[in-house]
């Protein structure tokens, strides 16, 4: 404990120098602006700035990039809350209640809680990172294909059970998303599936066109043609600040989201995306008034935002402690460190303590800078809503096209976005949740790979999923959820969702 504190002191002595603080600030500003542009997320921001960091010293380089990372994560939440455009999968859940709060004139508190939740989650995760990094990193390595399969199946079932409407309909959407994820080259055999000669589809369908189409475009289709357009909002200062009740209601979701996000975030792969979905589901289930979710519940913003941010920090655990990147963002960050001749891994803490602890401290500093920067900016962002909707939606549509095109310079992605917009519009008319499609799409390659690898490992026996403790535990949880979902059918009792008007429809 004493060792950690003295090391942290060393870290802060590095991170609090004026030049590092200036770079952290610059990184957060650039990240926030890049994150607000649809289609450009943390990865694009970091990749764009990477060459500029080659001439900097490694600590400054990593502080700048970490600032961009956090800033872009927050910037993505801003467009989700104000315009219902998630820039990436992690922001999908934020746009459900965040945008509903905007429609109710509570955009300011939603943005403020997103900033506060991100800060709190970032802080808690940095503390966990300091004390638990080596232990958790070795735990994460115990995840083999069967454990991944169990985790992903459990994630999909948790989301389905805890979502608002019919579990059958939610699972249908998740399966549809998984099917979308089957398009493109099969990683194990090299077969190109369901691409029908369209070369751009060989790489599969990206999450950005799907998320922007399903959420952003479908919303404009539903709203732009209404006989009475949405009213122009002119928020007062009081409306920009979360009320005492809103702050009180957000504490629990922020703490739970932070713990959940951090634990899921350390697992290598795309599993961290589950964290915001599961957090939303848990908050809804725990709420005394689940009917508020989907209609602007602040817990629906606080939980997923915290989980999302904590997962981002958790992802640094295997990167720093073991030198294993958990996703594209950490891979680029790893490259930024390695360019300077530094090899992350178990020896990094011993050989380069000022870099390791300086990085940990700068993550904390980055979170503080982001909070100081963004809370006053809430008022600026909310002013966007003063623009009449008839002027706003054409610009948003153009931004959607521009943002989606920018991801891969592909017109096919724009077609996919428009197709998903139409699909989302119809599915919403028919009462289907759209979030499971996004989750299914992101998890599909990972789920397929882990299922096939598990079966290959066991010689075709499904028993492998029930022979390993971590996998068994997660499948038991999944099984319990299915039983709970079947209970109303067997005992003719009412499902908890029925009590809030969200009874099984399918």
């Amino acid at each position, binding site marked *: 404990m004493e060792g950690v504190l003295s090391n942290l002191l060393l870290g802060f002595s590095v991170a609090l120098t004026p030049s590092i603080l200036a770079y952290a600030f610059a990184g957060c500003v650039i990240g926030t602006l890049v994150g607000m542009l649809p289609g*450009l997320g943390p990865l694009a921001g970091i990749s764009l700035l990477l060459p500029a960091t080659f001439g900097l010293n490694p600590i400054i380089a990593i502080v700048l990039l970490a600032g961009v990372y956090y800033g872009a994560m927050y910037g993505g939440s801003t467009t989700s809350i104000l315009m219902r455009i998630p820039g990436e999968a992690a922001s999908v859940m934020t746009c459900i209640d965040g945008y509903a709060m905007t429609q109710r004139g509570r955009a300011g508190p939603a943005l403020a809680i997103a900033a506060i939740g991100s800060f709190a989650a970032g802080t808690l995760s940095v503390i966990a990172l300091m004390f638990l990094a080596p232990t958790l990193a070795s735990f994460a390595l115990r995840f083999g294909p069967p454990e991944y399969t169990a985790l992903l199946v459990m994630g999909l079932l948790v989301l389905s059970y805890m979502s608002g409407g019919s579990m059958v309909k939610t699972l249908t959407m998740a399966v549809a998303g998984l*099917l979308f994820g089957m398009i493109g080259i099969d990683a194990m055999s090299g077969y190109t599936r369901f691409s029908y000669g369209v070369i751009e589809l060989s790489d599969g369908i990206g999450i950005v066109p799907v998320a922007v189409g399903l959420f952003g475009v479908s919303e404009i289709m539903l709203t*732009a043609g209404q006989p009475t357009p949405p009213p122009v909002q002119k928020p007062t200062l009081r409306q920009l600040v979360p009320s005492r009740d809103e702050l009180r209601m957000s504490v629990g979701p922020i703490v739970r989201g932070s713990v959940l996000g951090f634990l899921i975030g350390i697992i290598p792969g795309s599993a961290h995306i589950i964290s915001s979905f599961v957090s939303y589901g848990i908050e809804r289930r725990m709420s005394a008034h689940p009917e508020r979710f989907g209609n602007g519940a602040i817990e629906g913003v606080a939980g997923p935002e915290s989980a999302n941010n904590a997962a981002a920090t958790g992802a640094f655990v295997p990167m720093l402690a073991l030198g294993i990147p958990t996703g594209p963002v950490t891979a680029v960050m790893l490259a930024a460190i390695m360019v300077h001749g530094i090899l992350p891994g178990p020896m990094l803490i011993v050989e380069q303590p000022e870099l390791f602890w300086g990085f940990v401290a700068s993550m904390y500093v980055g979170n503080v800078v982001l909070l100081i920067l963004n809370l006053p900016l809430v008022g600026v962002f909310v002013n966007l809503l003063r623009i009449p909707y008839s002027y706003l939606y054409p610009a948003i*549509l153009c931004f959607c096209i521009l943002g989606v095109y920018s991801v891969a*310079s592909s*017109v096919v992605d724009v077609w996919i976005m428009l197709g998903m917009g139409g699909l989302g519009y119809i599915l919403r008319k028919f009462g289907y949740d759209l979030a499971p499609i996004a989750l299914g799409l992101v998890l599909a390659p990972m789920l397929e790979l882990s299922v096939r690898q598990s079966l290959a490992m066991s010689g075709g026996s499904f028993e492998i999923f029930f022979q390993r403790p971590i996998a068994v535990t997660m499948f038991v949880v999944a099984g319990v959820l299915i039983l709970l979902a079947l209970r109303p059918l067997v005992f003719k009792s009412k499902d908890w969702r029925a009590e809030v008007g969200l009874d099984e429809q399918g």
Partner: protein
Amino acid sequence: MSETSVTGAPRRLHIDRISGAVFVVIALLVAWENRAYPLGTLSEPGPGYMPLGLAIALGAFGLLIVLRGGASPLFDTIDWTEGRRAIVLLIACGVAAFALGHLGYRLTTIALLVFMLGVIERKRPLVTLLMAFGFAFISYFVFATLLKVQLPQGPWGL
């Protein structure tokens, strides 16, 4: 939207029955298309293994939705007030996507914004043109010049 029952009386369609049936049809189509990919064996699943499993799941869920869809709202009750404009917007964006490669980013964006603001929303011509040109050129500057995103060029380098 109604169908005729065996007795000849019109029978109303429920939204879940329609959507569930569509999912069953999609599942059958996916399973049919999946014939092109080897299923492999249980110990060595092929590229067709997972899509077939998912198609079966989609079909099963679709069937469940159809069977339990009697309690869902009727198709007639869906409000399509905004439907026409929604379709027009989607088609306009589709045309813009097609034009992007031929006219370039700036000209396409100007045309799309002029259509949406001037034709659909009937804003004043000056405001429409100012917004269309302003948006196209400023966004091009931010994305193409500052962020080095490759945006398509049209005639005259626009």
